[in-house]
């Protein structure tokens, strides 16, 4: 009896195994999964939904699309590392190094050479060089960018038409004039340290090009370069001049940017996402426009990107790559401009009117740098030492000379403690 059971059992297992194999062979249908960090209510989600529907229709692929929002993908890296996780995921310039070190991204050299369907051009042809650079790591193109992000000083062109100071002196003159007229020139959400550092970073890297901020983390001697003192003195001038709103360091995000949108302040330094964040708060007739911090020198422009990466351990790498070339079609990229109100990654698709200044700056830039000059890569230096020090400078707690002295000393300490 026992023997019979054993034979039956083995037989059953064998059948089950065959069944599995057979069903595997018949499933020739492609499939693709994507768990998006966009929220279902965001305009990007609507574009992505259309994209996936169209892709499914044209290729017959079975798509699994979920919108979980920023907080829904907290454990994504660990999931992907363990062989789970979706085929496609969202990423950005600042995450390339982490993802590459964890071997989570499939390099996209082959996607660069692929044709964008129906356009007779390759992926590489339609993505401007700075955009590709901002989306690449040491293994080449790391993800397919759909959106360009950058930093600028934002203002209301209806109030100050054509405002575009070319030198620091012109900029300060505008701030003084604004103050004299009884207005508050700059609104700053001072509890966000990486918004406060926009001033120093834009001044230093704008004038001296890629690497000039990142190098401060690598060797204390770099703090002695005159350009560092120059940028710090300009920030000190902002702090001492009283150009930012009272108690800005105690202003909890997003109070200052919302007040700016309502016309309380003239200027707000921020990323290209600002306009869509404050959209509901904008006073009627507000015309969002921007200019670059007049840093002088090399006039380097920040270029960062957002895009889709392919999970190296995903089950459908080939389909995911096919999707990327499909998604880059003009008709979809146009929606990132018209629906999501962002700067699309393709150079031949115009940005929304209020971002035309930034797009022009990016496309015409002779020099470009990555978001924050990639100085956040050493996170202990960046988060525990540099950003707090930058906060002290812009809040007027220390002057430029102390900033340099402290920065140099603490960088040396940090490097010594490894």
């Amino acid at each position, binding site marked *: 009896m026992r023997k019979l059971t054993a034979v039956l059992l083995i037989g059953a297992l064998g059948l089950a195994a065959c069944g599995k194999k057979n069903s595997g062979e018949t499933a020739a249908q492609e499939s693709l999964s994507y768990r998006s960090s966009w929220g279902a209510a965001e305009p990007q989600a609507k574009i992505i939904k259309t994209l996936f529907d169209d892709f499914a229709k044209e290729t017959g692929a079975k798509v699994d699309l979920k919108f979980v929002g920023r907080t829904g993908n907290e454990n994504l*890296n*660990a999931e*992907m*590392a*363990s062989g789970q996780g979706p085929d496609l995921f969202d990423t950005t310039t*600042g995450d390339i*190094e*982490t993802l590459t*070190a*964890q*071997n*989570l991204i499939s390099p996209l050299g082959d996607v660069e050479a692929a044709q964008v369907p129906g356009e007779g051009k390759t992926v590489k042809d339609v993505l401007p060089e700075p955009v590709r650079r901002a989306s690449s790591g040491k293994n080449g193109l790391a993800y397919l960018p759909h959106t360009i992000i950058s930093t600028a000083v934002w203002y209301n062109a209806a109030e100050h038409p054509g405002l575009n100071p070319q030198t620091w002196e012109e900029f300060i003159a505008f701030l003084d004039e604004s103050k004299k007229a009884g207005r508050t020139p700059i609104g700053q959400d*001072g*509890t*966000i*340290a*990486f*918004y406060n550092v926009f001033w120093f970073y834009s001044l230093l890297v704008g004038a001296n090009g890629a690497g000039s901020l990142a190098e401060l983390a690598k060797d204390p001697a770099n703090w002695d370069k005159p350009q560092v003192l120059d940028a710090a003195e300009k920030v000190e001038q902002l702090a001492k001049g009283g150009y930012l*709103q*009272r*108690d*800005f*360091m*105690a*202003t*909890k*995000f*997003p*109070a200052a940017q919302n*007040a700016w949108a309502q016309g309380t302040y003239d200027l707000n330094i921020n990323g290209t996402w600002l306009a869509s964040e404050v959209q509901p708060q904008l006073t009627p007739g507000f015309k969002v426009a921007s200019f670059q911090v007049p840093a002088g020198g090399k006039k380097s422009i920040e270029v960062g990107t957002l895009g889709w990466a392919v999970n190296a351990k995903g089950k459908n790498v080939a389909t995911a790559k096919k999707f990327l070339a499909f998604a880059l079609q003009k008709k979809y990229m146009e929606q990132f401009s018209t629906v999501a109100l962002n700067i699309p990654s393709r150079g031949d698709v115009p940005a929304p009117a209020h971002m035309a200044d930034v797009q022009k700056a990016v496309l015409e830039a002779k020099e470009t740098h990555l978001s*924050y000059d990639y100085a*956040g*890569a*050493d*996170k*202990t230096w*960046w*988060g*525990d*030492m540099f*950003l*707090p020090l930058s*906060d002290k400078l812009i*809040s007027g707690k220390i002057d430029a000379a102390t900033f340099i002295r402290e920065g140099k000393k603490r960088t040396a*300490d940090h490097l010594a*403690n*490894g």
Partner: protein
Amino acid sequence: MKTYERAFWPFLLPALLVYTLLFVAPSLFGFWVSLTRWSGPGSEMTWRGLDNYVALLHNEVFATAFTNTFVMAIAGGALIFGFTFLSMVVLRQLKGRAFIRSVVFLPLVISIIAIGAAVGFLLNPEGALNTVLEWFGLDPQPWLGPEMVFRCIVGGLVWSSTGFYVALMMSAADAIPAHVYEDAQLIGATKWEQFRHITLPLTWDVFAVSAVLWVVNSLKIFDIVLAFTTAGTAAAPPIPARTIAVQQYIVVKGSGLPELGSAAAMGVMTLLVTAVLIVLTRRITRRDRVELS
């Protein structure tokens, strides 16, 4: 004796196995990680020995986070139990005390996201509190600025946690028979004396447990710091507001590679501190049990 010994292992084994698998093994792994440099599954793990610990000891920011955590545990604890005892004195005979108790408990139920949003309305430079101060001719204060934010967080912590301990202690106090208090009143004991000689001794056991619960919870304080500072953004809270748990979050989730080794070292240090504090708390609160005959 023989039967007892034979039964021992089969009964113990399942629990031991589950405990080892779900708690002991991950803890040991965590300790192991604290001796390495590691960015998580998929990346290379390199041996660092005690370097992560040495680096933490030299790290001023970690020192601040460590001190802040202690201050929260001790000053926060003193305030919370101060209010709890006070409410036990005041509320015991009050009409509608059940209602007041639930009102005090309410902050615990409110989501931290809502608290974060409310903090902005209330404490921003142009917020409600400063507006009220200005009505009375007082100077507005930078509540959420680097100098004051930590005190505001401790205040928020006391506001949101007290209700829980009030509920716990009051339910113990409710179990004390009314005739004990009646006797005390007959001999002319004041409210304070009643608390001191009746309520406190008879609820001491629950207080000892509450104190340990508070210590354990306070060393994990995290979300309220974010609610008061950078909630809704990817930014790290300012240094004066950081706790160990927040610092841990920053080294794992902030920009750049996750530093799991350093985070694990912080975890091991917190575990040691928790153990010491619990032993201390137990010792301080150790009394002979008072029982009504």
